[in-house]
């Protein structure tokens, strides 16, 4: 190996660094450090001339390690790596000393800041002189995607990928795709019929040659890595053979069991042999095993003979497991609505005429239990109160965020009431009205013009007075307590992560942000990526959003998911773990701590004997280094973060440079 020759470059960052750190002194200091061949300072190293300076020096001084003392490596590490690459040395022979965010910006005393910068720089040089060139590997990509969730986000993402020309598996846990959007009546602010705009897309999915639809299915295992995921899918038994059922519905009347209709949020009844809703895709019936007398007790079986010709009913169906190989995955698992029983003062669950916004959608929908007449106890409500922010912006239930849709859906629902019951008195209690989207403010204006009363105040309590409900709040604009008597209270419940989201998150090893929604890779710049390469987010699983935002994000996720598929190859992490076979004792500690199952014990011949030795799958390894700290014999090391390199920094930082 050739001699280590380090070049040190110190950035002024205009005055950002220079005003607090004496860069001249620092350069002088750097030039005396071991292995340093040249040390220079420059006003903006990230600029083109700055990078040129480094590139020229690499050639002139035959440098093989570069230290840049500048801003955080989280800013410009890629920039300088590129510069190294174009100058012909390995991009991983770069180390950045953060003397801006960690030094000049946080200290005032020039002398102390300079001394600290010296210390940081010396440690960085110590590590840099031990750096090794690294390589990123390339692996082939299976040109297929998997979309989890068949709501509007999943539907849109699946269609976009399929239209691009790649095969898509669309996995939906319910018997039909459609999701929450299918349950909505009208959509704000345009008042289109939700089902009318959604069903064409659903049938597109059903008919698309590139989409393989797996409804009533859940994923049970995910292995592999970007380009080569292996996903196991459980198809729950629907007791109806999908290929044979033509959706005629002759069987329904023979089914003797009634159960609450999940599509109508249990506001009505359905048979336990049912189709979720008439436009369901696939147009195939399903039997709920929790209600069916045959699946429960092996009796009844009245439906089976009815379908003799098609033979579509199979009460002995078992669950099935399918394994698919895919290159990328889109998570579009959606949301739950907030459970308002957690706000006992609002009386939900206690008073039948306190309902949630989603329940209101079903009541208002022509396909709902009342065929679109808003009725409470068989009567049209004359006084209706809407309450904003139920379960949102509320630390008492752990939801600090704004759910973004409730203001507008409440406005829409208030409008629908006025539309259906023109003489109704409608009061909306709000804290702030957020009408930020395209056409939102206009819609809000329109609704107010319809005579709907908006009162500012967070409702304190709902209680009974005779037959009526009383909504008590302070009208904060009046500074007075008000009590509004009402026939119907609609709670604008917010969105929360799905109750079962942990299962999927754990399978896919996805992290959550503090609001418990899925965490994107970067809140601004990588909003649909996750920390796991090849897995993308769409829709409300990432955070509350309305339909247009969901569709936009779904298309974004689809196009992101198509990038590796169309490139055909992906690059892997270079700073991965590696094993020294001779030191490995085969204990598997590394295997046990690896969050990505990237390490396995493999029989290996060492000095003529076959022994188990850890082996790293460099494609799976994400370079966290947990294995290194777990290894007792120091056999496993993380490239660019080896014990030797980190210890050299520790030793250097301990030293005083008086």
């Amino acid at each position, binding site marked *: 190996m050739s001699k280590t020759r380090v070049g040190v470059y110190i950035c002024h960052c205009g005055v950002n660094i220079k005003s607090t750190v004496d860069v001249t002194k620092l350069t002088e200091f750097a030039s005396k450090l071991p292995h340093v061949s040249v040390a220079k300072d420059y006003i903006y190293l990230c600029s083109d001339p700055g990078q040129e300076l480094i590139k020229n020096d690499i050639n002139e001084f035959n440098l093989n390690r570069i230290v840049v003392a500048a801003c955080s490596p989280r800013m410009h590490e890629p920039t300088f790596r590129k510069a190294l690459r174009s100058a012909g040395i390995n991009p991983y022979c770069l180390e950045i000393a953060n003397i801006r965010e960690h030094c000049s910006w946080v200290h005032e005393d020039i002398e102390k800041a300079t001394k600290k910068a010296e210390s940081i720089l010396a440690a960085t040089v110590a590590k840099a002189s031990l750096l090794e060139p690294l390589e990123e590997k390339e692996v082939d990509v299976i040109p297929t995607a998997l979309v989890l969730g068949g709501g509007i986000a999943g539907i849109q993402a699946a269609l976009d990928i399929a239209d691009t020309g790649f095969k898509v598996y669309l996995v939906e846990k319910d018997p039909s795709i459609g999701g929450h959007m299918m349950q909505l009546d009208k959509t704000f602010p345009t008042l289109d019929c939700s089902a009318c705009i959604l069903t064409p897309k659903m049938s597109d999915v059903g008919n698309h040659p590139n989409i393989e639809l797996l409804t009533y299915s859940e994923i049970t295992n995910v292995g592999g890595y970007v380009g080569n995921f292996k996903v196991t899918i459980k198809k729950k038994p629907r007791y109806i053979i999908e290929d044979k059922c033509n959706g005629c519905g002759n069987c329904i009347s023979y089914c003797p069991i009634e159960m609450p209709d999940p599509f109508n949020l249990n506001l009505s009844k359905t048979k336990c042999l049912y189709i979720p809703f008439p436009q369901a895709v696939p147009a195939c019936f399903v039997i709920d095993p929790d209600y069916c007398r045959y699946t429960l007790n092996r009796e009844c079986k009245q439906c089976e003979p009815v379908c003799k010709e098609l033979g579509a009913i199979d009460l002995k169906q078992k669950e099935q497991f399918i394994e698919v190989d895919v290159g990328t995955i889109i998570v579009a698992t959606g949301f739950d609505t907030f459970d308002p029983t957690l706000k*006992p*003062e609002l*009386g939900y669950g206690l008073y039948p005429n306190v309902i949630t916004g989603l329940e209101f959608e079903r009541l208002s929908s022509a396909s709902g239990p009342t065929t679109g007449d808003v009725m409470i106890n068989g009567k049209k409500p004359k006084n209706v109160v809407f309450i904003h*922010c139920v379960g949102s*912006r*509320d*630390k*008492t239930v752990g939801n600090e965020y704004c759910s973004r849709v409730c203001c507008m859906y409440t406005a829409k629902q208030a409008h629908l009431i006025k539309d259906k019951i023109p003489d109704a008195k409608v009061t909306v209690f709000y*804290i*702030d009205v957020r009408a930020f989207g395209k056409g939102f403010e206009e819609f809000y204006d329109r609704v107010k013009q319809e005579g709907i009363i908006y009162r*500012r*105040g*967070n*409702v*304190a*309590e709902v*209680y*009974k007075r005779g037959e009526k409900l009383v909504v*008590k*709040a*302070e*009208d*904060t604009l009046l*500074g*007075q*307590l008000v009590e509004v008597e009402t026939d119907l209270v609609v709670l604008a419940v917010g969105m929360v992560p799905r109750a079962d989201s942990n299962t999927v998150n754990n399978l896919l090893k996805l992290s959550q942000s503090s609001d418990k929604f899925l965490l994107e890779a970067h809140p601004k710049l990588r909003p649909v990526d996750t920390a796991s390469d090849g897995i993308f987010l769409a829709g409300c699983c990432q955070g509350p959003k309305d339909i247009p935002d969901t569709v936009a994000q779904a298309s974004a996720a689809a196009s992101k998911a198509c990038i590796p598929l169309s490139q055909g190859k992906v690059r892997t992490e270079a700073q991965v773990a590696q094993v020294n076979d001779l030191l490995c004792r085969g204990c598997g500690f590394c295997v046990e701590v690896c969050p990505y199952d990237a390490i396995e014990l493999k029989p290996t011949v060492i000095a003529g004997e076959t022994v188990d030795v850890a082996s790293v799958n460099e494609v799976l390894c994400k370079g966290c280094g947990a294995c290194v700290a777990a290894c007792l014999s120091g056999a496993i090391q993380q490239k660019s973060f080896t014990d030797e390199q980190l210890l050299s920094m520790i030793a250097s930082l301990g030293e005083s440079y008086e």
Partner: protein
Amino acid sequence: MSEEAERLAYILRDPLFPCIQCGKCTGSCPISVISPHFNIRKLLYEILNSEGEDIAQKKEMLWDCSTCTTCVVRCPKEVDPADLIISMRSVLVEDGQVPPKIRDVLKSISIRGNPWNIGQEKRSEWAEGLEIKSIADAEILYYVGCTVAFDPRLQKIAKALAKTLAKAGINFGTLGNDEVCCGNEIRRMGDIWSFDALKEMNIEMFKQFPIKQIITSSPHCYNTFKNEYTELGIEVKHYTQIIPDLIKKKKLSFSKKFEKTVTYHDPCFLGRQNQIFDEPRDILKSIPSLNFVEMDRTRERALCCEGGGGRMWIEAYETMERTATIRVKEALDCGAEILATACPFCLLTLEDAVKSGELEDKIQILDIVEIVSQVID
């Protein structure tokens, strides 16, 4: 800003910054219903926008609050308006600007160790004729509490509880005349200094005995021991928490019937502030022949009786309806003959409401333990 103003801003204003003025606090406030000039949200807003020393110049209305903490538990931004009230009261106490009745209480505390201005020698008056052990000879401390010990009506609670505990074979004792005030109300009146002194005194006293557990009859004492005596290190229970267990373990059985329709009023310091909702109901439901009914507003939604936060000592707005009166009406509405509670302050305020409404023949106020003691043996 002057140093003093800065200090006041730090204590009073800064914790309020997260407030979004949604009005949940005022809407939830039982006092706002009866006292229109008491608007806690508005007070917060004024303080948020005030500068300097005038922060403290906040008024006689401060003494209206019963520290029920409905506003605290419901605030979506985790602001603590009750704490603001207490802090402001403490500023007034420090300045000596307190109503005469409050001043008398604070004086009584410092001289007599109880807020009722009664000699300590009367503290164990209730126990006369009963064989109550000293805590030196027992392992569980029954902390009676000042109001229960001195008020002739409430002494029945102490007697009933002592009888019940003895019946269940619990090895309990009291501090006798050495018991001093727990300080819960004192702290809420703003005298945080006396509270600290009482706390120190009590912990010191408890440490002299190998106490395994403290049982209180008042939710107020319970609350302060449990949540504010952070260095105590002894398990504290309100009596309603132990009785269900005694029933379950068959240490307590009911030989008599109680053929009445009973409803239950949740004391703020038991329910809202310490989430003890089920245990008192469990006790009532296990009493033979007792017909238990619920009022419309129960549990988290229960209405405060106005007995806390020093309000036992201050009469306010004689013209207004008391919340206790509203509460008694609600109990009558659900058909109850007995309105049970588990707090001495609630008992007094509700009984006052019954008397002033001349409803004695329609409804009776009882502490749960009084009912229990009637059906054992």
